[in-house]
């Protein structure tokens, strides 16, 4: 892309002299004030929304929908007794959610780490075809295949099971994982690898003894990303899991929304906070890694 900037012929001349410099500075301050005002105003609803989860789950009442009054823990009773007898055990549900997140993480790391190595470092027939396929799949909306995926899972006997969900979800995210990992392998100098190969190490030995330790930040990025997405999954869980024994927190809270919406915002916000808490912790402490995937996953255009 040609990067030419043409000076506007009718532009004001260079700012010289005291008066001009002051004017420029005043205008700069004005712009800064406007920028901050915009940023705060536009971000306020987000901050209020997430803040409400916390305030509301511990207050007896919110005046005008926003102002908390009276501290209570009664909205958190669901931790010890189900909101109604039809609900499955909360801890079992939480365990299922964790299993979904961990299973998803393991699948993503186990599959994308070796594949990305092969795509980054080995030349073989079909390499470009497969890379092209993953790129196209990354842009391709896998969610449109939901109906057929339901059929495939049924056929494999994986409906109503957590592994069914995380395998499907991992397949959808795999292209992203492969490209992020490939980026990390591409960044490693191949001299080290070459010397290992010359010394007689096999390709697989070279991979896990020499290369793997160097792409650990990439593995961390993918793990965190997969964990959060597995933990939060909604649509595949709702569609593929009806059996209450295999419910995750998404199904659990979905049922609460169905039963208690408009009636009990205390319960809604407490369960929602319970669900989002691990995500928030991850989000706050591992932002560096998350940003890497967000950008890495879309570097095609920028």
């Amino acid at each position: 892309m040609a990067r030419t900037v043409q000076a506007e012929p009718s532009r004001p001349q260079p700012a010289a002299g005291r008066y001009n410099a002051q004017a420029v500075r005043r205008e700069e301050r004005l712009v800064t004030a406007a920028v901050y005002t915009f940023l705060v105003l536009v971000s306020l609803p987000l901050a209020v929304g997430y803040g409400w989860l916390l305030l509301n789950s511990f207050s007896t009442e919110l005046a005008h929908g926003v102002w908390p009054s009276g501290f209570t823990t009664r909205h958190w009773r669901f931790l010890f007794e189900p909101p109604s007898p039809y609900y499955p055990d909360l801890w079992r549900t939480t365990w299922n959610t964790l299993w979904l997140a961990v299973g998803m993480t393991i699948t993503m790391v186990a599959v994308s780490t070796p594949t990305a190595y092969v795509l980054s470092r080995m030349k073989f027939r079909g390499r470009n075809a497969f890379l092209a396929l993953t790129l196209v799949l990354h842009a391709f909306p896998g969610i449109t295949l939901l109906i057929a995926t339901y059929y495939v899972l049924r056929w494999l006997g994986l409906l109503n099971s957590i592994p069914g969900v995380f395998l499907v979800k991992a397949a959808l995210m795999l292209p992203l994982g492969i490209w992020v990992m490939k980026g990390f392998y591409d960044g490693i100098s191949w001299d080290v690898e070459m010397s290992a190969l010359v010394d007689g190490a096999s390709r697989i030995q070279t991979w896990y003894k020499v290369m793997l330790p160097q792409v650990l930040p990439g593995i961390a990025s993918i793990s965190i990303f997969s964990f959060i997405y597995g933990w939060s999954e909604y649509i595949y869980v709702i569609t593929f899991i009806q059996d209450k024994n295999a419910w995750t927190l998404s199904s659990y809270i979905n049922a609460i929304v169905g039963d208690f919406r408009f009636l009990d915002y205390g319960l809604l916000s407490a369960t929602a906070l319970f669900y989002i808490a691990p995500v928030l912790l991850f989000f706050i402490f591992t932002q560096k890694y998350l940003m890497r995937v967000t950008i890495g996953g879309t570097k095609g255009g920028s």
Partner: protein
Amino acid sequence: MSRSQKVALFVLFLPALIITVVFYVIPAVMTAAMSFTDMDFRLRWNFVGFATFARMFEDFLLPRILQNTIVYTFLTLAFFNVGLAVLLALVTSYVPERVGRVFQALWLLPRFTPPIVYGIIWMWILDPTRAGLLNGLLALTGARPVNWMTDYPMATIVVTNGIIGASFGMVIFYSAIKSIPRDYQWAALADGATWPQQVRYITLPLIRWPLLFVTAYQTLSLLTSYEYILIITGGGPYFATTVWSLYAYNMAFGGYFANYEFGYGAALSIVLVILGTVASIVYWRVFRFREMMAEPKIEVM
């Protein structure tokens, strides 16, 4: 390639191949096949030719659905996924980096929030009684509560989806803005250009390419994602917020009006699948993805 090389290749490559074929390629082929059947909850392959596609032309709801889809995609894209995204990228790159990062994190948070939790936050904000945020604030002025979701259904789904969608463009535009050489900015400053002028004459022309990419990419994302609509309005009231992808989903899995119409649902999906495939190939050509596939050096030796 030696024998051991081939073994290594096979072992390292196989898992990805299996998963991609079983959960991506087979479902894609199967969606195409299913769209020519009248499959229902019994999951029988009863081929009926083009009957499902003919049904689309007779479906009296479909024109409404199509209109919803276009309006929703256009408005969300214009105001949020590109519009707000550019503004956020501009202001977060203008303020000191640490401040910018905090606000970017806040905007990225909805993307990582469990969709049902994000939905609950909006159910509260838009609640039709005074227990909700908007109506609670409105009550301070003495106004009567408004039923936001039924009175402004399209605005509801545009705003709720847009707030999530804006962060994608924000991140891309931000890194594009940061990669503009500082010389241009200094030259502009020396010429006495103000910040708005710099944005208009330097920044925006230089991020044309990412702008185009985000527009194209997010159009496809918006056309095919319906998760938040399903949670927040469920497609209603009546069909006011049902978009094409949600219609296809409800046809197959929606409990309340048409259970397990897998054949017709697949036919509706295949329209999106074709659209998705064409779009992916267009991105491939236009955005020069091929450059990212350089041959590995080690094999050249």
